[in-house]
Every structure is written in structure tokens, then in C-alpha cells.
């Protein structure tokens, strides 16, 4: 049993719903009790989809458990087929139905429906949403494209003269973080360099589209979280290679183009000329100097976390002080990235652990999910959202991809936005006691509504108690434990003149310096000694 306040991922059948909803003519019959229909509102309210997800829930009740829940399932599947006439059907169980072991796959097979029926086995008590999405997509691709797999050893037919190289785009789902705009951006990029996009799947694909996935020359995998296993299977079955580079950031976009050019057999130099991003120059312009070395903490799904950390380091000049993911399936990739930045990766889906790490690291910017946005808000740290889990705000009305050249521009704007602007930050540092520069004042362009929240009270809720403990450890230093350095009044006052967003770090560094140098009483001098010692 795991004590959970907030979850980064839903159960695996919600992952399956994201695939079903993304596809055009597929229906999902889910053996589930009343209440599991809550998941519909994720799609209709958060993503504002104008249609219901194509899901039928059997809605069994306590009184059915002694009776025939299997019959209930068969009726639901039969009626769903009659009513919606899907081209293919997915059948499966939610967590409760998994316990009653009715075998939806077997029951659906017994109905002998005139369409392909793909049974899904999604172990709810072991796996989570992204795994469920990946497994579902893989099963759908295998089930529908499987009949067209050539005999083993058959070489891929050579592309005829004059036929454009072609690919599929794999991975975008319903409820995906900016999938809608990423697909448009990457599709446009591929077409502009002369690559034909045959099928985008699952988003917008029909069952027939899935059946012809093997026809394209290669696959573009945008979201390994959902498409990796399907892409691996297509590679084995059809000999289709797939792209490994995730085109997030200007540098990765260039690398992606090179990878695509190689797979498509087109000239890389010509392809590279297809577009450019403003972000690299904006980052190099002297106005951005103030971004240098800003300490960032990165957390998200594996793919977005690794990509964001790289962009932060190589395209913004930030210092990555922490990186983590809630996707255990991608722990290896995130650990490898962490090693690059000399930090320890945080692999956890425990919100409290992430909060404690942010409180401990005191970064100047958090790049995270909506969860980290809340953590950062509470701790008074600026934050930009880079990954699911998502919120209604992550479906902006405007075009805002994360990928490709335009995506790099979007990253530049959205990551810089929550920070203090360059000169404002300097002025704030110089005139600490100016009444309009009090601790509660936010960056001027963020308006009055976003003033810095108060630190948690002593009756803080459980979700923040660790963070509160972290803050308490630094703010209650005037009553230290035995052997710890004590702050002199003038030093304490001087500390107060340091802007709030670096004050915690200054306090920590000074106390560490004092402990390490056997200084019992921290004076103004100690403060500056420490500053010189740790100065970057």
C-alpha cells in the first residue's frame, strides 16, 4: 500500500482511453463499476473535446457481483457495437473488474462480432497510465497491422524512382501535453524537407490507417512513452527504422532533421535550410545574460525531462541542479542525463519526495508538471510547465508547440516569462529596502495577482509538511540546536537585504560555511566570507 496525495499518472485503463479517444473509429468497452466514468471529464473538460470519449462502461453494482457480471459485459459490448458501429473494438477491465476476473477478451470473442476485437490486459495494481497507453497502442497496431507483416526474411521493397520518401508519426494521443501543436509543427517540418507523412497515429488515425502503417519507409516517434513498443514491433515486423531524437529545442531539432534526412535518403544540408528558430539568437543576445547559471530543477515524464534539461543547459545557459521523472519506465534515460549534469536523478511518483527535493535545492526556476507548479508556487519559486500531467491551461487556444523550430521559440518565451527581467533583478538587489520591492512583490510584468505566497503555516497540510520542515530548518535558525552556529542580529538584518529568491541559498551557504569553519556566531563578516567562499 502506498500513501498517495496526488498522482502523476492515472490508472492504465485511462491510458487506453487516451488511445481510444485519439483514434477515429474505434470503441472501447470497459468493464467497470459506476464512478469510473469520471475519466470522461478529463477529455471533455480539460481538453475541451466537443465529443464524448468512445467508451462504454458496463457499470456493475454490488448487487450484480453475486449474479452475472459477465452477461452485463456481453450486453454492453453487443449494444455498443450496434449503436456506434466502430471499425474495431478494444475490450478490457478497470481495476475493480480486474478483481472479478470476467475475462472481457474471451467474452467479446464469444460474441463473434464482425469487426476486429482487441483484448487489453492492463494490470491496474502494478502499472500506470503511460504504460497503459503504450501497451494499448502496441496491441492495436499489432492487432490491425499484424495480418500485413511480410514473411520473415522478406527484404523491404525498394522505393520506386520518383516516389517521395515517407514516414508515419507515432505517439500523439488525446490528453497529451501539446501533442496537437507538436504534430502540426513536425508534420510541417517533415513535409517542407520533402518527406511525405502517411499516417499520424494514434491521434486522428482510423483502424484502416493502423493496418497500413507498414507501408511507410520509416517511423517518427515523438513520444516514446506511448509509441516506443509499437515502433519496436513495426521495426521487427516490417523492417521500418524509427527516429530516436526528440525534436525539443533548436539543437535537437537540427539533430532530428539530420536523422530524418539519413533515414529518408535526402540531402541533409538542403533539409537543414528548411527552417530556423529565433530562440538561439535571443538566447545569445546580451539581454539574456542575466539567465546565466540560473539554477533549475527539472521534473516530468522521462522524455520531456531529459529534453528540457538539455535545452536548459545548452540553449539557456542555466545550471541543472536537479532532474527527475515519475516514469519508472524511463528511469535509465533520466539517470544517464543526471550523470551528465553531475546530479542525482530523482525517480519517484511520490509528490512529497519531489516537494522535499525542491525545498532542499532551492532552485531559481522549476521546469515541471502542474504538480511542480503548485510546489513552486508555495515555495515562491518561478515555474514553467514542460510535461504532463496536465491541466486545462495546458491546452492553450493559441498554437504553442514544444517541438521543432517554433517549439524552441515557445520554450524561450515560456521559460523566461516567470523570471525577473534582467535589470529589474539588479535594481531589486540594489535597493532592497525600497517599499515597492518588498518580499511579496513579484516581477512587475506578472502583475499584482501573482504576489509571492506566504510560507506555509505551522498547521500546514501533509502535502507540504516536508517542505515546511525544510523551510523551518532555515528560518528558525535563531533557536538552533546545540553546536550549530548562531546568527548575530546585524547579520540577520543584512541577510534580510538579500532578495528573497536567493536568500534561502545565502542562509544555507553561510550556515554551512560557519559550521565547516567552526564559527559559532555568524556576523556580517561571516556572511560575506561565505559569499566569497561559495561565489560563482
Amino acid at each position, binding site marked *: 500500500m502506498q500513501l498517495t496525495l496526488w498522482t502523476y499518472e492515472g490508472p492504465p485503463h485511462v491510458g487506453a482511453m487516451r488511445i481510444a479517444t485519439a483514434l477515429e473509429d474505434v470503441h472501447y468497452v470497459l468493464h467497470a463499476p459506476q*464512478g469510473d466514468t469520471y475519466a470522461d471529464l478529463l477529455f471533455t473538460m480539460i481538453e475541451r473535446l466537443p465529443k464524448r470519449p468512445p467508451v462504454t462502461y458496463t457499470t456493475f453494482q454490488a448487487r450484480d457481483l453475486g449474479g452475472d457480471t459477465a452477461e452485463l459485459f456481453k450486453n454492453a459490448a453487443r449494444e455498443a457495437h450496434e449503436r456506434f458501429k466502430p471499425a474495431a473494438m478494444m475490450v478490457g477491465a478497470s481495476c*475493480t473488474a480486474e478483481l472479478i476476473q470476467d475475462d472481457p477478451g474471451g467474452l467479446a470473442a464469444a460474441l463473434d462480432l464482425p469487426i476486429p476485437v482487441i483484448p487489453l490486459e492492463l494490470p491496474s495494481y502494478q502499472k500506470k497510465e503511460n504504460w497503459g497507453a503504450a501497451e494499448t497502442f502496441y496491441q492495436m497496431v499489432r492487432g490491425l497491422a499484424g495480418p500485413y507483416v511480410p514473411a520473415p526474411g522478406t527484404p523491404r521493397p525498394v522505393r520506386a524512382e520518383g516516389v517521395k520518401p515517407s514516414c508515419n508519426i507515432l505517439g500523439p494521443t488525446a490528453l497529451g501535453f501539446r501533442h496537437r501543436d507538436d504534430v502540426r509543427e513536425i508534420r510541417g517540418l517533415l513535409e517542407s524537407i520533402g518527406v511525405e507523412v502517411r499516417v499520424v497515429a494514434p491521434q486522428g488515425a482510423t483502424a484502416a490507417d493502423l493496418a497500413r502503417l507498414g507501408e511507410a519507409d520509416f517511423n517518427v516517434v515523438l513520444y516514446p512513452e506511448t509509441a516506443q513498443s509499437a515502433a519496436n514491433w513495426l521495426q521487427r515486423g516490417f523492417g521500418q527504422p524509427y527516429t530516436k531524437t526528440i525534436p525539443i529545442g533548436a539543437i535537437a531539432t537540427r539533430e532530428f532533421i539530420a536523422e530524418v534526412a539519413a533515414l529518408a535518403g535526402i540531402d541533409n544540408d538542403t533539409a537543414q535550410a528548411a527552417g530556423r528558430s529565433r530562440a538561439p539568437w535571443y538566447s545569445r543576445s546580451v539581454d539574456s545574460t542575466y539567465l546565466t547559471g540560473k539554477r533549475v530543477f527539472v521534473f516530468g515524464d522521462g522524455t520531456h525531462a531529459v529534453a528540457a534539461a538539455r535545452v536548459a543547459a545548452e540553449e539557456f545557459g542555466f545550471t541543472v541542479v536537479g532532474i527527475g521523472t515519475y516514469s519508472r519506465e524511463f528511469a535509465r534515460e533520466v539517470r544517464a542525463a543526471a550523470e551528465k549534469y553531475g546530479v542525482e536523478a530523482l525517480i519517484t511518483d511520490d509528490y512529497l519526495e519531489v516537494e522535499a527535493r525542491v525545498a532542499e535545492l532551492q532552485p531559481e526556476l522549476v521546469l515541471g508538471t502542474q504538480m511542480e507548479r503548485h510546489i513552486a508556487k508555495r515555495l515562491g519559486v518561478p515555474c514553467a510547465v514542460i510535461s504532463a500531467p496536465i491541466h486545462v491551461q495546458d491546452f492553450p487556444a493559441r498554437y504553442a508547440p514544444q517541438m521543432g523550430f517554433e517549439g524552441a521559440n515557445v520554450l524561450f518565451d515560456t521559460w523566461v516569462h516567470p523570471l525577473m527581467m534582467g535589470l529589474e533583478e539588479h535594481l531589486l538587489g540594489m535597493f532592497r529596502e525600497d517599499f515597492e520591492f518588498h518580499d511579496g512583490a513579484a516581477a512587475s510584468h506578472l502583475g499584482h495577482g501573482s504576489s509571492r505566497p506566504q510560507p506555509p503555516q505551522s498547521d500546514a497540510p*501533509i502535502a507540504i509538511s516536508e517542505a515546511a520542515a525544510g523551510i523551518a530548518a532555515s528560518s528558525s535558525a535563531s533557536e538552533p540546536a546545540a553546536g550549530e552556529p548562531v546568527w548575530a542580529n546585524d547579520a540577520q538584518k543584512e541577510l534580510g537585504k538579500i532578495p528573497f529568491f536567493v536568500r534561502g541559498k545565502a542562509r544555507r551557504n553561510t550556515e554551512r560555511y560557519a559550521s565547516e569553519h567552526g564559527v559559532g556566531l555568524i556576523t556580517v563578516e561571516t556572511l560575506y566570507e561565505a559569499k566569497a567562499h561559495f561565489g560563482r
Partner: protein
Amino acid sequence: MNAVVEFRPRDAGCGDAPVLRERGQREVFCGLTGIIWLHRKIQDAFFLVVGSRTCAHLVQSAAGVMIFAEPRFATAIIDDRDLAGLADANEELDRVVGRLLDRRPDIKLLFLVGSCPSEVIKLDLHRAAERLDGIHRGRTRVLNYSGSGIETTFTQGEDACLAALVPELPQAAPGAEPELLLVGTVADIVEDQFLRTFRAMGIERVAGFPPRRSTELPAVGPNTRFLLTQPFLGDTVRALEARGAQHIAAPFPFGEEGTTLWMRAAADAFRVPTTHFEQVIAPQRERARAGIARHRERLAGRSIFFFPDSQLELPLARFLARELGMRPLEVGTPYLHRQLLAQELDLLPEGTALSEGQDVERQLDRCRAARPDIVVCGLGLANPLESEGITTKWSIELVFSPTHGFDQAGDLAELFARPFNRRERLKALEGQV
């Protein structure tokens, strides 16, 4: 009876009307959802769902937002190791509760909330609560109830929670002065209005249940008379009656008429002189009438279709029909408690179609065929219906907003007028999805 407060049903009402009982896919929340308002109401209580990742995801998604301010709810997520052996699951639960209470020593009341998985694997949370109550005695009281979807629909979770709390109420001394109890969660501001009004009538001994702190549980006994503020509290009624308390039957306090009849029922039970009663409520009634009148023009004559959601559907349909002149076409409710709703049924216009339970696809067929001017439905259906050109009102807002009583009657009417108002303003966007 005085003519000013006497209302007769406009016609024969729906007391004997047939009810369409449906059995199929239900587009409703389970009882766990009640935690979202209950944890704000009882400020020293914590709600620990013993369930799956789905339960955790539901509670965090149900409100449409993540409430991060002070969450006093969490989920003990059952995993495959727990499913391997039940003894293990109990030890795990003890460990999780221990960790929780160590971190939140301020929690005085802990509810273990049963879910579909915990019910199906027959994890005995009643025994677990007793055991944990023994372990944490003197510091935290531990109770249990079920909010599982296989047993409860949406607001029934509150019923189960309150019914579990009733045995904890202190026993009123024999021969104690009669006391009025207002049962059901309403917004604090509304509760305060009610308490003020009843005291002004001379009913000094009046309290709300659930209380705002678990240490302020009201006493209950044969001299307790109680009014329901919410129609979905059947089990709570039974539990209170088992303690000797007497239920005061009344329509529910929605709108000027409903609130008057509801208060009058209590005033009669406490022998408040009619003239005094009328004097006390007169200014509030006047304000309620004025508040409602502002929206009458927009709503009168419009037809309305209710999908089942909170069990508030009948009282709301009655209010909209009688005080705003709307025409209820179908009133769906997850569960029709005939006894508690007897007076509401009598007041509902004859010919209103009633349905209980749900087969959402068939109900959508009926709804499209009926072409109502406005549909009251859950969050999963609202945008899809809007995209078909049907005006909707999210039902969850009716549960999450202060809507009871005289001074909220205008606000309640406004919640139904707003979608029309918005549609008029956005007329130029019609047909664009």
C-alpha cells in the same frame, strides 16, 4: 395555517406518477467524490480512501481542479502485493495510517473510506477502523464508511459518512430541552443564516450536523428534532431515528417557497407562533422574491431536462417550475427516495417524466428528441451537448455553490439563467465548434 405561507400544489403533482427505472451505463460520480466538500466542512477530519490508483485519480480530477491548499484527503493505493494476502493488507494499512497521523498530529477524526476494490476483496474496514481507533485512542478517532461506486452514487457518499458519524454523537440527557438539528453539509455562510433565523424565531437550541470540528458533535436523543438540508441522506435519517431523534418532514430549502415551507415545518414542530414566524422571515422572503424575479423573464416558459447526478434534481425542478415558470420535461435522479421526497413530488407539476438510475445512451436519445431549452448534466456530457447546440448547466456547480435558503434563492436562479445569458451574448459564435 396562514394564507401567506400556505402553498398548495398547482395541480395533482407527481406523487403517484410512474417512474422510468433505467439500468445501464451511468454517467455519474461514485460516493468518494463527497470527500471534496466533506474535508473542507469538518476541519479536523482526514479522509483516507483505501482503494486503487483510479480512486486517487478520481478524487483529484473530480472537482475539475486540483485543490492544493490544504488537502485533508489521500489514498492508500492497494498494489499487487496487498492482493496476495489480506493479513498483509491490514498491516500495510496500519503502517500507512501511522505514517499519516505522525505527520498530521492535528487530525482528530480519521475516516477510512472504502472503495470498489476494497469492497470486492472484502477488506474489512470496519474492523480495521476499530483496531486503529484502539491504537490511536485519545488522539484520533478512527471511523469508516464506504464511498464505493458499486454501492454509492456521488452524494450518497456524504450520507454514508454522516451515518457513520451518528453513533459518535453524545447522548442528550433524558428530559433535555427540545433541540433542532440541521442535517447535511451546506456552505458555512448558509448554515449561519439558518441558525440565526431559527434563533430569531425563538428556537435557541439549534445546531448543524456535520459540525465544523469533530470535537463539536451535537448531542442527540428523543428530544432532538431534525430537518434535512439535503435530500440524499436516507441512511443518516435512519441512524438518527435509531437514536430516538424525530425527522421533521418538509420540502427542501431551495427557493423562497421551499425555504419557507422547510422553516415552517420546524417552526410548527417547535410551536413558534405563526405571526412571529412570519415576522422573522418576512424581510428574507422579500429579498428572495426580488432575487428570483430578476431571472424570471429569462427562464419562464423554458423547458429543462435533468440527467441524474446529485439527487437534488427533484427539489431543483420543483423550484424552477413553481418559482420561475420553467417546464421540466424529464427529471432524472440516481435514486428516488419516495419518503424523503414525498412533499417535493406533490409540488412537482403533473406530467413531468421521472426517471431513476440511468442508461446514458438511451437518455441522450430521449433528451435529443425532447429538444429541451437547457439540460442539467455532469461534466462528462456538458461540452459534447453544447457542441450539438444544446445549452447546459453543469450539475456539480449546484452542489458546490451556496444555493440553499432565502438569501441564495436569487443566486440559484442565476445559475440557471447564466447559460442563457451567455448564449445570448455569444450569439454570433453559434454553430462554431
